[in-house]
C-alpha cells in the first residue's frame, strides 16, 4: 500500500461520473423481499418466495464471468445489487451472497471450471445453496487449532473421507454443499500444502448439522456441521496454501461491507421518514438541528463507506487484490452501520426498541456484520501489515512492572510499612 496520494491513472479508477449517490437508482427491485423482512426475522426462515425473487432478478449470476455461467456484470452493477438486496433484507442477502459470491469464488479460484461446473451451475441457478465452513467450535478463527482432516478413503473406495466439526457457518442448516477448510492427512513424501478446501455434499449419512440461535440476521441460517467420515469426491479436494486463502476470503469482507451499507442506508431511510412525519412538542423532528445533525453525519459516513467499497470492487475487477482496501472498508462500514442504527433507534425512541419495528431489527443485524468474517481488530492488523509494518510481534506480558508502574504508589507519607514493596 502506498501512503502517498493515489497515482494510479484515471482509467483505473472508479469512473467518478458513475459514483453512486444515495439516490442512484438500482435496477434491482427487491421490494417483495423487503416487505417480508420483518416476517423473515420473526420466523428465522427465508420464505421460498425470496429465493424465487432472487433467482428471477439475475442476482446470483452477477459476480461471475460468462465462462462459468455468470453474467459478467460490471462492478457498479454488482455493488448496486448487493446494496439493494442487503437493504431489503440483510438476512436473505447474507444467505444468498455467501453462496453465490464467496463460495462460487472459492470453487472457481481453487477448483476447475470444467470439472466443477457440476457444482457451480446449480449454485448460480439457485437450485442449490452452499456454505463456507472454516471456524471450529472450540477455537474461533485461529487456524492453528483446527482439527478437521481429510484423508484418502483408501480401501473403502474412491476419493476421500472428512472428519471434524465446523461451526458458526452461514447456511450450515440449509446448504446442499459445503466448502470446508480442512487439514490434509499427508502420505510420506507428499510435500504439498498442509491444508485443502474440500467440497462436501451435505446430503449424506456422515453429515449432521445443528442451528445456533443468533441475535441479528435471524433469517440467515447459521449453525454447525459435524462430519464423521463423510465422503468427498476425488476431484473435490483441492490442496491450498492457507496464506493464500485470505485473498479469496476478502470477497466475504466485501459482502459484509455491503451488508453494513445496506443496513445503514435502511436505518437512515427509516429515520428520514420518521423525522419528516413526527411532530414533538409542536416541533417537526425534521426541523430540529439535533436531529438534522444526526442525519447529516449518517449520510456522510454511509457515502464514505460506499465509495471506498465501490473503489475496492473496481480494483478487484481490474485484477488487483485490493485486499487492504477491502479490509479497511469492512472495518469502517460495519462499525459505522452500528452507529447509524443506534442513531436511528434514538431518533425513533421507544418504538425503535419494540420487537418487529424495522430499526429494532436493523440494530440487531448491524452488530452481526462486525462479528461475521474476520473481526475488526484482525483486519486492522492486516491493514497495518500491508502498510509495511511487518507482522504482529507478540510480547508476553509483563512489560509494565519492570518500569515501576506495576504496583500502587505510596501515599504522601511514604509506604505504609517501611520496607514493604509491591
Amino acid at each position: 500500500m502506498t501512503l502517498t496520494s493515489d497515482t494510479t491513472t484515471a482509467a483505473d479508477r472508479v469512473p467518478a461520473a458513475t459514483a453512486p449517490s444515495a439516490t442512484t437508482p438500482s435496477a434491482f427491485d427487491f421490494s417483495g423481499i423487503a416487505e417480508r423482512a420483518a416476517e423473515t426475522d420473526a420466523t428465522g426462515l427465508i420464505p421460498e418466495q425470496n429465493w424465487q425473487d432472487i433467482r428471477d432478478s439475475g442476482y446470483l449470476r452477477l459476480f461471475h464471468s460468462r465462462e462459468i455461467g455468470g453474467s459478467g456484470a460490471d462492478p457498479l452493477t454488482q455493488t448496486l445489487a448487493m446494496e439493494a438486496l442487503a437493504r431489503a433484507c440483510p438476512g436473505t442477502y447474507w444467505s444468498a451472497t455467501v453462496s453465490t459470491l464467496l463460495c462460487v469464488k472459492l470453487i472457481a479460484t481453487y477448483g476447475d471450471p470444467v470439472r466443477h461446473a457440476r457444482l457451480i451451475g446449480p449454485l448460480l441457478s439457485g437450485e442449490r445453496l452452499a456454505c463456507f465452513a472454516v471456524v471450529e467450535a472450540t477455537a474461533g478463527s485461529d487456524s492453528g487449532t483446527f482439527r478437521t482432516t481429510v484423508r484418502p478413503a483408501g480401501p473403502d473406495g474412491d476419493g476421500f473421507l472428512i472428519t471434524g466439526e465446523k461451526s458458526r457457518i452461514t447456511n450450515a442448516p440449509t446448504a446442499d454443499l459445503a466448502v470446508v477448510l480442512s487439514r490434509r492427512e499427508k502420505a510420506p513424501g507428499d510435500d504439498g500444502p498442509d491444508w485443502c478446501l474440500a467440497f462436501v455434499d451435505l446430503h449424506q449419512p456422515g453429515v449432521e448439522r445443528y442451528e445456533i440461535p443468533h441475535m441479528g440476521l435471524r433469517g440467515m441460517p447459521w449453525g454447525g456441521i459435524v462430519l464423521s467420515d463423510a465422503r468427498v469426491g476425488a476431484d473435490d479436494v483441492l490442496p491450498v496454501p492457507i496464506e493464500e486463502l485470505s485473498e479469496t476470503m476478502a470477497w466475504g469482507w466485501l459482502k459484509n461491507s455491503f451488508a453494513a451499507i445496506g443496513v445503514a442506508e435502511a436505518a437512515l431511510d427509516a429515520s428520514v421518514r420518521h423525522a419528516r412525519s413526527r411532530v414533538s412538542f409542536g416541533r417537526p423532528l425534521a426541523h430540529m438541528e439535533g436531529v438534522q445533525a444526526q442525519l447529516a453525519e449518517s449520510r456522510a459516513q454511509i457515502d464514505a463507506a460506499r465509495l471506498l467499497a465501490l473503489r475496492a470492487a473496481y480494483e478487484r475487477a481490474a485484477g488487483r487484490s485490493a485486499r487492504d482496501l477491502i479490509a479497511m472498508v469492512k472495518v469502517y462500514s460495519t462499525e459505522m452501520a452500528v452507529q447509524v442504527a443506534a442513531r436511528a433507534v434514538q431518533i425513533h425512541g421507544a418504538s425503535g426498541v419494540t420487537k418487529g419495528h424495522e430499526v429494532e431489527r436493523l440494530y440487531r443485524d448491524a452488530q452481526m456484520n462486525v462479528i461475521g468474517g474476520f473481526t475488526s481488530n484482525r483486519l486492522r492488523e492486516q491493514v497495518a501489515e500491508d502498510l509495511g509494518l511487518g507482522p504482529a510481534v507478540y510480547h508476553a506480558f509483563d512489560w509494565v512492572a519492570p518500569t515501576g508502574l506495576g504496583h500502587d504508589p505510596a501515599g504522601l507519607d511514604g509506604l505504609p510499612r517501611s520496607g514493604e514493596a509491591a
Partner: protein
Amino acid sequence: MLYPNSTSDAAARGAGGNPAEWSRDAADRIVRPTAAERDRAGRWDPALLAELAGLLAGPLVPPALGGGGLSAAETFALLEGLGEGSQDPGFSLAVTTHAVLSTVPIRAFGTAGQRERYLPRAASGEWLGAVSLRQTQGAALAPTVLARPAGPGSRGWVLDGAADLVAGAPVAHHFLVVAAHRDGGRTAFLVDRDRAGLLVEEAGPAAMRTCPWGRLVLDGCEVPEEAVLGTPGGAADEVEPLLAALDWVFTSAPWLGLMRALTRDAVADSREQLLFGRPLVHAQSVRFTLADLVSRCELAAGLLRRAAAQFDEGSRPSRQDAAAARLFVVEAARLVTEGAAGLSGAAAFTGDHLVERAHRDALFFAGTGGGPEVLRPVIAAALLELG
C-alpha cells in the same frame, strides 16, 4: 502552461501521469523546505508561487485563455499533491483561494469581457485573486458589505462595509466580494485593488500563518456596472452556492495530501520511538491507530473526489455531496493530526514539525466553510427534502 510529461489532453485521458504527482514533487522541492520558517515568521514569499505559477495558478482556466485546462477532478488531484508535497496548509490555502475560489466564479458567471480581462492574467499568476472566507458559506453569517446604486447618471454601485478573513488579500490584484442590498438581495462584485475607497489592511487569524491574510475596508467605494459578476441581486442563485461548494471541496484537497503526509510521518515516528523497551510499532494498539489513519485518508478521498468530479459532468454538482465530503474530511483531518501527534511523542513539539502546524490549522480549517453548524443543515435539508 507546463504540465510535466503531459499535455493537458493526455492528462485528461490519464495517459500521462497524475497531476498529484507533478504538484507533489514540485512543492516538496520548492515550498516545503521553508515552510516551518515562513510559518514562524508569518511570511509570504512571492517567489514560491512565481516559480510554481505555470503549474498552480490557472489549472481551471480554459487553454484558450491561457490556462491549464485541467478538469475539476485533475485540479483536485493537483491541490491534493500540493498539500502533500508542501506540507504547508497556509500556502496551499492561498493558492486554492486564487486558483479556484476567485477564478471559477469568473469562468462560470463572468461576461466575455470579464473572462478576457481576468482569466489570462490569473492563469499566468500575474494577477492574484482573493476572497473572504466569511463569504464562502452563503449568507449564513450576516452580510458585512452593503451595496447601493451609485446614483443619477451612473449604472455603477457604491460599496460600504468591511470583509474579514480575506485569504490572499495583501498580495491580491482583485477581490470577489458579495454585497447585500437594502432589499435583502445580494450581488457579487469583482473589485480591483486600486479602486478608490478600498483599503486593504493586514490582519488575520493566528492560523494558516503562511497564507497572506487581510481585511477589506470599503468606504464609499464606487465600482462600475462591469464590476458586477453574474446577475445583479442574483448571488444567492449563482455565486454563493458555487463559492460554498468550491470551498467545501477544493480547500479540502490540500488537507487530503496533508493527511497522507502526516500518516507517513506517524508510521516513521512509531518505528523509531521506543516504549517499554521496544518499538512503538510493535504495540497492537499503535498498529490499529495507524490502520485507522490510513483508512480515513482513503475514505475522505472517495467523498472528495466524487464531489470534485461532479463539477466536470456538465450538470450541477450536488451541494449535499460537497457538504458531506467537507463534514467528513474535517473530522478525518482531526483524527489524523491527533493520531499522528500521539505517535510522534515529544518530536511533535519542536516548533518545526508538520503535526504541530497541522494540529493548529486543522482546527481553523474545521471552522471554515461554515463548520458543522452550516454543513449539517445543508445536508439534512437536501436529505429531508426541506426548503
